[in-house]
């Protein structure tokens, strides 16, 4: 290991990006594109939208790198940008009906959740039926492993609200996976305690 050079931290790289260093930007894209895509795909429900959201996320990184002061972890900051990008994209495309986003199986015969999986129920489609605020919290916590406190910072709500959203989001997701026929009628609003 002698003579080896440790890779620059994200914080170092983003500081370089703030000065127009495109190589640093390149490295940050490489490091985080998969995680941001996972977030975006679960949030938007389709790959084309997810790619758009990831693009917006990194464009924002490029344009606003100077505003990153290191008060939070870079990952938290980038997740926040990603969540906002998804939110903006969903708002822009809200005219698209739930039916377009969600394709329920032809033969929803009921049965257990596990049997549902066996019939290849689409998790992404079900997630698309979960209210956005709940979905954000569930995706960040259960799929990406982001701690409650970090999610609170990312989404700008109290930790207790995050926990509540996760719980409600999971329950709604379970309902949708069990009864996919209810997906199209699942447009509901978030009601935080």
């Amino acid at each position, binding site marked *: 290991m002698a003579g080896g050079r440790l890779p620059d931290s994200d914080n170092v790289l983003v500081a370089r990006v703030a000065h*127009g260093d495109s190589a640093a930007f*390149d490295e940050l*894209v490489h490091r985080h594109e998969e995680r941001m895509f*996972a977030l975006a795909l679960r949030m938007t429900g389709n790959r084309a939208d997810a790619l758009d959201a990831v693009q917006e996320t*990194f464009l924002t990184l490029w344009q606003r790198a100077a505003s990153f002061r290191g008060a939070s972890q870079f990952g938290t900051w980038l997740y926040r940008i990603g969540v906002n990008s998804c939110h903006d994209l969903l708002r822009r495309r809200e005219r698209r009906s739930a039916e377009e986003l969600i394709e329920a199986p032809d033969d929803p015969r009921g049965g257990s959740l596990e049997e549902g999986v066996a019939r290849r129920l689409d*998790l992404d489609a079900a997630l698309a039926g979960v209210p956005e605020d709940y979905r954000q919290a569930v995706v960040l916590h259960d799929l990406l492993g982001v701690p409650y406190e970090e999610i609170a910072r990312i989404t700008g709500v109290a930790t207790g609200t995050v926990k509540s959203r996760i719980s409600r989001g999971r329950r709604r*997701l379970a309902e949708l996976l069990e009864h996919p026929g209810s997906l199209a009628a699942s447009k509901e609003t978030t009601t935080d305690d």
Partner: protein
Amino acid sequence: MTDLTHERASELLGSYAQKALDDATARAVGRHLAACEQCRREHSAVVLMLRQPPPSLTSEERARLHERLAGATLGAGASGSRPAVLERERARSGARVYAWLGAAVVVVVVLVAAVQLWGGGGGGAGSAGVASSGGGTGSSHNKALQSIPGDRETGLPPSPAYDRSAGDIEAGELEHLATTSPLFSAGRHLASSTAARLQDRYAHALARQAAPRDARTVRRCSRKVLAASPYALPVYGASGSVDGNRAIVIGFLRATAPGQALDRYVFWSFGAGSCSRILDYQSGLVGR
């Protein structure tokens, strides 16, 4: 371990599903699950989510993302250096392009006149004027402006040429256009500061000259690139197809730094749901 509260059990469901709890805590969660329908449902959802393979970018999606980011960072860095990941996409420039090719030789006269009109008034330090571009005399400029029903404000070619589909155009032909066309030669003498002032007018003119069904696409795609590239000017538009798909081709002149002349040529194609850089080189084919 004593029984868990509902809230605490709910918090632990993720770790429980991933078998990341110590034995005592896991048993406590299990007891709670046995008694709590609500948590059982939450747990089922978590298990199902964890069973899904994590989504991953395909190589094609990754390439598309990098291409798009390349467009957004066209004005990158005072050094003009390009992200390596973005430069790799440039190697994909072998796409066959079916498009119209503007009447460049004629247009240059118009553009040269335009350069004199605008560049002379505020071209900035890098504005070298147009004397060396071989554009001809002032009287010929005026004549061109009068005889071509194009966009007088910007000097862009007239709309009949815009939608011309004269057969396939190879990437090499675009290269030829950029390296030999007086249009582009003249554009090189515009300074980046001038470009920033003219972006909207050029984008608007290109859109105005496009076929009606292309106008919105041209305007949107031009602005998409320009939004992140303050030192570029859209000077070429074409409608046709790329790899069998209908596409718009837009050529940009851009500077690599503030105050510099627009000496880099970038051609983008915009199709349904995609955009990609198809050619990118500096004057004299630097970097090709």
